[in-house]
């Protein structure tokens, strides 16, 4: 690990004002310390924001405002989340382990970096870590990587389960930076790689996530389902966050659909939502909607299985959300 200067931020304004090149913000450390020990992240200045007064979860009109320093476990255990936003609570609960969820902050969860083996290993080429050095995953091992929205520069996926649910819920991310405060709508926080895979998000240098605001929850039943190779403590092969409202005459009202494990960003399945909305709620329609969304997928030779997996998972989750 490269040596660095550590400081504990006393307030948001101070943290942001003190930002200079080489600064990274430290939340729970569950991703950043991991990356620092791998040599992937090399901050010169580490500003600990985990103890800032950003730890509240409070009602905010018809929605909820979640401080960025709220621990993942506290978020998932909060009664408001469990009752009104179960999709989000469940997404958080499927992530990592109990110990990691106790340490990880909500802000940090959003900013965790890809699990691509080549990105994580500084002895390998990687356009995300070292722009221009190449993407060995494309011709190498990419079985866990993207089928949607990737580019010839990068096929990484975003690993956060929470972000997928937030994308489905139309959450909004509050940030404060050297140039002031702004609000970024999810799923727009995370970028697609394009020609700049080194930029995971639209955040500008120095911007600090201070809170996440959830609007009123979607009207229908909701779920988060994660498919992985072992029963727990593993990243998603594919995951689905969904909410489905079915009206009295068996038609789809409000529906939300977002996919994890398929792209550089949580993937809001808008095409599928369009196909579903106003149509009949049924297995065939679900399949058609899934196919519409996956039509633009371009899998790599080693991750083709994600197409049937995503399709089947979308249908299975929506099937489960149908009213009995």
């Amino acid at each position, binding site marked *: *690990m490269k*040596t*660095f*200067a*550590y400081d*504990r931020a006393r307030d948001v304004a101070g943290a942001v004002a003190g930002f200079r090149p080489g600064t990274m913000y*430290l939340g*729970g*450390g*569950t991703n950043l*310390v*991991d990356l*620092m*020990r*791998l040599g992937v992240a090399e901050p010169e200045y*580490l500003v*600990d924001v*985990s103890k800032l007064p950003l730890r509240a979860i409070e009602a905010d009109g018809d929605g909820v405002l979640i401080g960025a320093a709220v621990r993942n*476990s506290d978020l*998932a*255990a909060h*009664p408001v989340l*469990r*009752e009104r936003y*179960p999709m989000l*609570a*469940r997404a958080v*609960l*499927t992530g*990592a*382990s*109990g*110990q*990691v969820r*106790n*340490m990880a902050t909500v802000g940090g969860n959003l900013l965790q970096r890809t699990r691509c083996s080549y990105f994580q290993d500084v002895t390998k080429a990687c356009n995300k870590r070292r722009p221009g050095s190449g993407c060995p995953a494309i011709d190498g091992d990419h079985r866990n990587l993207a089928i949607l929205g990737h580019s010839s520069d990068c096929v990484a996926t975003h690993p956060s389960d929470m972000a997928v649910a937030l994308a489905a819920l139309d959450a909004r991310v509050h940030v404060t930076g050297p140039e002031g405060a702004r609000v970024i709508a999810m799923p727009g926080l995370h970028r697609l790689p394009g020609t700049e895979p080194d930029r995971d998000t639209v955040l500008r240098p120095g911007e600090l996530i201070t809170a996440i605001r959830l609007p009123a929850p979607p009207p229908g039943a909701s779920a988060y389902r994660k498919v992985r190779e072992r*029963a*727990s*403590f593993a990243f998603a092969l594919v995951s689905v966050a969904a909410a489905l409202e079915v009206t009295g005459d068996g038609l789809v009202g409000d529906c939300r659909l977002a996919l994890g494990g398929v792209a550089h960003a949580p993937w809001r399945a808008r095409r599928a939502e369009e196909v579903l909305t106003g149509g009949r709620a049924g297995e065939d329609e679900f399949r058609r909607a899934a196919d519409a969304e996956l039509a633009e997928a371009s899998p790599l030779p080693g991750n083709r299985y994600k197409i049937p997996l995503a399709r089947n998972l979308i249908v299975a989750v929506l099937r489960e959300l149908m009213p009995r």
Partner: protein
Amino acid sequence: MAEITIRVNGTGVPLSVDPRTSLLDLLRERLGLTGTKKGCDHGQCGACTVLIDGRRANACLALAVAQDGSDVTTVEGLAPDGDGELHPLQAAFIERDAFQCGYCTPGQLCSATGMLAESGPSAVTADLAEDPRLTRAEIRERMSGNLCRCGAYVNIVAAIEDVAGSGARAGDGVSAAARDMAGARGSAGAGEGAR
């Protein structure tokens, strides 16, 4: 170097630390508390699980410098008084043969201690609104952050079940019955000692 104070097993320790030092390495290399184990150093195995401010956490991912002012409990601090009575989980692990090589064991014990105090649902809880019963499925899920390559899981879950007590709910902690049994059992049996 940074100046910090951490309370470890009830004792405040003032230290000068390299900011790169993990809490895990601080415990093991500096403080000689080798009970907490390094299995992967990246939060992927749970062998380094300790309690930080009462909550289970991976010491390998905690920078010591960021723990200034924290209260840390390690496996050495689980038993109320070192050489005598064992913590109910420690006693149960022995009774149920819930370890083999023993390397993941301190992490399992601290993790289980923390886990028993965690109310709220888990990924396998059907109805998120309720505080679920600690079924075997719940225990397994909640303990999945602690890998055991010897494959002692079956006995680990049994030991935790013993301590939680039948009918326990998430967050209930150690059952009174388990506490009593540990007291009765605890002082028997001399260990081999750290020769």
